[in-house]
């Protein structure tokens, strides 16, 4: 593989540049849209103008829209990447953190943390991580009796884990009777409106190392997909790589869940679209998923903000409306 490395480097760079442009356009559109009207020119001036007047628009763009749009980009990137990794490791095109119940497990952990009165970071994030790890191992244990890779059995296990998780979530919510309930409901459905730059910054700092590690393991993912024997002969430590990837992905998913709840099917849309466009090489797909997933989520959040005439709806509604039909289509296609 070393022989064609300059070619791949070139490809990675060109794909990254194009998708970065898409992401920048999405972010800029996100920044220009909100309940108060503002032209793109004003937004540009507010972002890059030298005179910080401290005007109302500056406050709105810098402290309300920017944290939110960046959060959406980060979350979209993490969830898309999560989908890509699960699809590669489990060799199942339908694997995705939400469908497998990993997000649901993280949500149980996060709600428990919220009800215990823990702070968002590190308290709720850690309980969410514990929850996602627990469901991950439950899932693996359930499907390991047969071969892990069998499509239907894995999906069925995921669906069961997921509905079990929703039952526990409903149980926890119905046990709560105080005013935090409304908060939890909004958060659960993927609400990003209350974030600030601090929160987004912390999430960025936790996610970036994960992105980098996954990128370094992307070639191993390629080899794993060729088959176990092939991977071993090429010098891949299968156990180590698989475990690292699973843990890191669960960590990414749980930190997005503790920030903005359950956003379903995000890990399905972008990996599939990009695989269609760019082919199966994970060295290209990993950066592409980060950038493309980010743009996708920014646009979903934009739709969630602008579609309702009054107020806004949770972004989770939008992602599910786009993602679920795609899931059904993919399921039909893989059956054939």
């Amino acid at each position, binding site marked *: 593989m070393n022989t064609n490395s300059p070619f791949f480097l070139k490809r990675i760079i060109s794909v990254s540049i194009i998708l970065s442009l898409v992401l920048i356009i999405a972010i800029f559109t996100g920044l220009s849209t*909100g*309940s*108060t009207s503002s032209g793109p020119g004003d937004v540009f001036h507010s972002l890059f103008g030298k005179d910080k007047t401290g005007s*109302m628009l500056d*406050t*709105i763009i810098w*402290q*309300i*829209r920017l944290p939110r749009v960046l959060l959406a980009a980060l979350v979209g990137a993490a969830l898309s990447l999560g989908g890509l990794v699960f699809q590669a490791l489990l060799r199942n095109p339908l694997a995705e953190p939400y469908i497998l119940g990993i997000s649901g497990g993280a949500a149980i952990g996060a709600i428990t943390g919220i009800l215990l009165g823990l702070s968002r970071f590190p308290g709720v994030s850690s309980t969410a991580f514990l929850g996602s790890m627990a469901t991950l191992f439950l899932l693996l244990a359930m499907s390991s009796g047969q071969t892990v890779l069998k499509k239907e059995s894995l999906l069925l296990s995921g669906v069961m884990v997921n509905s079990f998780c929703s039952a526990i979530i409903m149980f926890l919510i119905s046990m709560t*009777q105080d*005013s*935090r309930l*409304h*908060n939890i409901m*909004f958060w659960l459905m993927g*609400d990003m*409106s*209350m974030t*600030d730059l601090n929160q987004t910054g912390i999430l960025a700092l936790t996610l970036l190392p994960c992105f980098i590690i996954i990128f370094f393991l992307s070639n191993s993912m390629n080899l794993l997909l060729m088959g176990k024997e092939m991977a071993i002969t090429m010098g891949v430590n299968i156990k180590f790589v698989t475990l690292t990837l699973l843990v890191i992905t669960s960590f990414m998913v749980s930190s997005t869940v503790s920030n903005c709840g359950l956003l379903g099917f995000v890990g399905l849309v972008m990996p599939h679209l990009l695989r269609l466009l760019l082919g199966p090489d994970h060295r290209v797909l990993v950066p592409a998923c980060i950038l493309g997933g980010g743009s996708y989520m920014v646009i979903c959040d934009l739709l969630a903000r602008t579609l309702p005439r*009054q*107020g*806004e709806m949770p972004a989770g509604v939008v992602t599910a409306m786009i993602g679920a039909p795609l899931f059904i289509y993919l399921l039909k296609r893989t059956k054939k």
Partner: protein
Amino acid sequence: MAFKKLYKKNITAFFLVFLQILFLSSEVCAKRRLIDQMGREVVIPDNPCRVIALAPSITEIVFAIGCQDRLIGATQFSDFPEQAEKLPKVGSYVHLDLEKIVSLKPDLCIATKDGNPKDVVNRLEALKIPVYAVNPKNLQTVMDTILETGRILCAEKAAEKTAANMKQRLKKIKELVKKAEKKPGVFFQIGIAPIVSVGTKTYIHELIVLAGGINLSQGNTTTAYPRYSMEQVIGLAPDVIIITSMARGAVFERVKARWSRWSELPAVKNKSIFLVDSNLFDRPAPRLINGLELLVKLIHPELYLEP
């Protein structure tokens, strides 16, 4: 003596005017440091004139003390009085639209402890918008909150008048209720499916007691709003069933029909199943006293029969 007093008064008045001019000319926006009902220290303008009320109850209080000219925004469902509906909406009280609030450039937001999530209040403060939190939770604290809102919005006189009016009506009700011979058992239903009632910790409980009734779900102290099954309610044998609902008309008829199946139920025998406007009872605002008056009429109709 009289002359001297007048002179003294004038001097203080003059001094105050002088001080005011001094403050205005120095162009420093006059501010005051206050402790709000949550015990937080808040710095608010001396004369706030761009105020956003973050809950329907607050909007009602501000209107009641005649400060509606200062209001520049309210939340969704702030529908009383009618003029309130015309105010720009800043989202619902549990889910506020931060961007809208900032764009209205308020110099003060008034929040409620019970309704507005704490992190939203923190976010607003981080955006340099002063938030004064109030915590009206029963008749007495509603009156206190009216007085306090009057102080913040420089309308002490009107606030005192509103509170005094409430106090007087409350006194009248207490005297009237004293004459009642018995205390009927009241089942106050605030949720239809599931059936939800009001526990001892709520102000509605207090209103029922003031109106000369017994709140049948008062023993329940674990939660403020206990849930009931149909069977439990029938076991309580309520003399009066009062249903508050945002749903009117057909839904009420259906709920009433459901209760009416149990012809042995005292409330069905006395024909005492009523629907009341939920806004009178779920907003800790001046209209709570109207709610109380209505309750007395429903629980003790005999008191109003006598001339």
